[in-house]
């Protein structure tokens, strides 16, 4: 794989995405929501004479869990199935893998820049208003959000390549979003009722690895607040993962697998496709 051609495609993709009105709308909306959450979150606590970090970042994490997968899926689908553009690209003397990698990198850069608006505003408000010992959690939280966008970009190519048609791909993308953000957890929750307490715990812990949204949420709360936040279940989880630092590392590595596997499958599919 030629790195320079990947970079060229990525730069091109970034410019196109930045000029897309949806990216600008997303950046503004995300920024506004983060502004509201962090401003009101730190304000209510201020009434009593101290200001905290806890609930505010937990709410920001929630926001990221909803929005970032959705935006990554939509931007990915739109970019891969835009009419007229990519046939030119595929006709160049570069491999299809390079095209995919470049496009993902470019889109990732676009999402990163768009979310940086919101994360920057939120961070400024928290830094000036809130009173918390552990600000290091914030960069970790931003990094996890970005990893989440990368996972869903990777899934979005898989959807785009597998579906081929734009309308179908959008529909499937929405299903993928709904499945991972809400439905998967409901299934596991329901399923866990079939087992006794011990087996149910194991079942839930293993099931975390099947859902990147869960992994980001758990890794985020672990790094923001530590395992105590989950109470007794947290102690069991850390025992299962082998400690806090190791647990976060395992979750991040598994998220990496969630980026690479859909990407490799997409390349295989695309290789055999007639464009």
């Amino acid at each position, binding site marked *: 794989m030629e790195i320079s051609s990947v970079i060229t495609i990525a730069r091109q993709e970034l410019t196109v995405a930045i000029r897309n009105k949806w990216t600008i709308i997303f950046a503004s909306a995300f920024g506004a929501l983060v502004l509201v959450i962090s401003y009101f979150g730190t304000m209510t606590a201020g009434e009593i004479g101290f200001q*905290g970090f806890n*609930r505010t970042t937990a709410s920001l994490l929630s926001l990221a869990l909803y929005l970032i997968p959705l935006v990554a899926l939509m931007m990915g689908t739109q970019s891969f199935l835009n009419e007229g553009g990519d046939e030119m690209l595929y006709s160049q003397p570069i491999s299809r893998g390079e095209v995919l990698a470049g496009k993902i990198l470019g889109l990732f850069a676009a999402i990163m820049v768009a979310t940086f608006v919101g994360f920057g505003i939120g961070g400024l408000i928290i830094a000036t208003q809130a009173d918390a010992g552990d*600000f290091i959690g914030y960069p970790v939280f931003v990094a996890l959000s970005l990893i989440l966008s990368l996972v869903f970009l990777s899934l979005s190519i898989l959807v785009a390549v597998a579906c081929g048609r734009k309308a179908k791909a959008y529909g499937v993308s929405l299903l993928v979003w709904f499945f991972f953000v809400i439905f998967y957890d409901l299934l596991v929750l329901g399923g866990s009722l079939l087992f006794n307490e011990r087996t149910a715990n194991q079942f839930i812990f293993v099931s975390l690895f099947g859902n990147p949204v869960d992994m980001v949420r758990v890794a985020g709360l672990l790094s923001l607040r530590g395992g105590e936040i989950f109470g007794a279940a947290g102690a069991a989880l850390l025992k299962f993962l082998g400690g806090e630092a190791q647990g976060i590392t395992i979750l991040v590595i598994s998220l990496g697998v969630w980026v690479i596997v859909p990407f490799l499958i997409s390349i295989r599919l695309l290789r055999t496709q007639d464009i």
Partner: protein
Amino acid sequence: MIFRSRELLIFLLLAVGTVQAEVLTVGPGGAYQTISSAIAAAADGDTIRVESGSYNEELTVDKRLRLEGINMPIIIGTRKGSTVTMIAPGSVISGFRIEGCGGDLQKEDAGILLRSDGNIVENNELEDVLFGIYLYHSSNNTIRGNRVVGRKHLESGGRGAGLHLWNSSGNTLEENIISHTRDGMYIQSSPDNTIRGNRVSQLRYGLHFMNSDDNRFEDNVFHDNIAGAAIMYSQRIELRRNTFVRNRGFSSFGILFQDCRNCVTEENLILDNAVGLFLEATNDSVFRRNTVAENDVAMQIFSSSKRTVFTMNNFINNLSPLQIVGNISSSTKWDPDEGGNYWSDYDGYDMDGDGIGDVRHRIHNIFEYLEGNHPRLRIYLNSPAARSIVVTEKSFPILKGSNEFDNRPLMRPVKIATTFLPERSSGRAGWFLLAFSSMMLGVAVAVFYRGLVR
């Protein structure tokens, strides 16, 4: 003559004793080179002044003496038994630095061991000690302004408590600073003490307390411990204006009450703990005008706790307000005549402007309600799925949810003067976040500018 002859005799003896009280000086410039030789030579009522320096000895104060350290002389024990043992009543020890007691938890090896009544232990610094100050069947003492630092190199379980009270009553423990021991204060079978203005941090239980009725805790601060205060098997305990901050460990808490009755908890600040208040089998207790904020779980209440009253408290920005363990509902009263509580997550309104919400406040949602008896569900804390269950329950109340309501929720938080504000996090961390955020904004602006304008 209204005095009986015996009383007169005692009075005369005391008067003579006061007149004759001598001052013995220990140190390079004094008459004695060791403190124990001065104690041996002294008589009841004498004062022993100890000049600055290091004294390698173990003291037993067996007379009514006043021991004064000038410029913090250091007493280093023999690493066997207690460094200072007080067995005569009415003595004073102040201004010493005390180190190097023994290491046997069973033998009460302490910096200062009190086995007599009516002593004053003031302004001492105890370091490298197993127990700090141990009150062993010792009453009516004043322990004030001491600092205890435990043996950091030992496992928490191998250390003793900072202040240990066993079978001791009527003591005043004031303005002591305790860290790195096993428990800050361990109080057992010791009724009727006053514990005021102490500061306890970086250890296991800030307060470990059992079988001791009628104790008063005022203006103490318990911060950064594994657990704040565990109060067990006691009645009529009063907690006022104490602060419990950042006590975080697994199944940990700011304050735990177990098997207690008729306790009063007023105007305390319970901030940023894993669980704020934990109640098990605790009856007829009142929580009034406390601020419970920023905890992972504000309250965990076992349904074995009966008739608890919460009135005029502030519950602010807790991740979960309440978990009830056991039966479906507790007999807790959230809205007595005195008034309801302030809940920062209350979403009702106040049309008549009387400061009380017009819609009753359901204290915990269906998910928090289920968590009480199914702890594993807490893994789904903050997940979209959990939220969707909550929204579903609100819109279609098919699932039977919690019965805990505050019928008179306050619209504004109750103003409570807190005695302790957690210090602002280090400026460096704040600057770091400022710089990091500015960098993100800068990158975003630069890239958008380059893409859109150029």
